[in-house]
């Protein structure tokens, strides 16, 4: 078994742990998690915009650092909880998923792809408008270019998980939970 296989098996096992279930038990909670995940991505876009406006400068470096830390503080718990909610649907290789999960993953990628097309078109328009007045002499700071590409990549990377988390119906109750509930009532 390759190290990647071992890693994926461990990831699959971790995603079956029930300790995070209270965070994503209801659709409302899952959608709040998705909103927080989207906010973390927006922080990256804000980071790129700040760099465009004021880089290169010490203030830009400081703001970048603060925004990146804030983004990570939101991102890590949210993605962990969403992966637990979707049971790794958007993160695990296909061989660890069944046909329902693969179908749902394809659906999530299809919606994410549509959203990504809108993001790319909007980015093109924003760049065109921002540089319109300067014409051929327009310049973009290198840091801003890097951060825009980084934000684009991250958005593309995270969108399928956000879409899957948003669409996820309430899972059927676990029979163990049912049995425990009935034992508690009796």
């Amino acid at each position, binding site marked *: 078994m390759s190290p990647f296989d071992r890693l994926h098996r461990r990831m699959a096992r971790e995603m079956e742990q029930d300790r995070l279930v209270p965070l994503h038990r209801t659709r409302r909670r899952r959608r709040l998690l998705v909103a927080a995940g989207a906010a973390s991505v927006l922080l990256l876009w804000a980071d790129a915009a700040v760099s465009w406006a004021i880089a290169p400068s010490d203030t830009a470096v400081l703001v970048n650092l603060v925004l990146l830390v804030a983004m990570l503080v939101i991102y890590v718990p949210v993605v962990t909880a969403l992966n637990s909610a979707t049971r790794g649907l958007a993160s695990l290789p296909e061989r660890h998923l069944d046909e329902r999960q693969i179908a749902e993953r394809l659906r999530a990628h299809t919606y994410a792809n549509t959203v990504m097309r809108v993001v790319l078109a909007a980015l093109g328009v924003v760049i065109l408008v921002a540089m319109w007045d300067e014409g051929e002499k327009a310049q973009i700071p290198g840091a801003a270019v890097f951060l825009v590409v980084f934000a684009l990549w991250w958005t593309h990377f995270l969108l399928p998980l956000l879409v899957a988390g948003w669409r996820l119906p309430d*899972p059927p109750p676990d029979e163990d939970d049912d049995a425990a509930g009935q034992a508690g009532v009796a």
Partner: protein
Amino acid sequence: MAEEQVFNRIAVLRADRGVSRRDLAAALGVHYQTVGYLERGEYSPSLHLALRIAEFFEVPVEVVFSLKPFPKLGSTS
């Protein structure tokens, strides 16, 4: 296409045979939640999975799946 619905008797058969959702899922090689979604009618299986479910319960596939709702237990129709 989204309106297509396939009815099934997986929950009834499972209860009749005393098979847990996790055991059935393990035998079919699917996630246990998938069995739950199947039972709730929120997921229609592929032909392959449908045939394997019928094979597991040792019944013809039309005993497990139908395009029309199954009659309730005890009903005469």
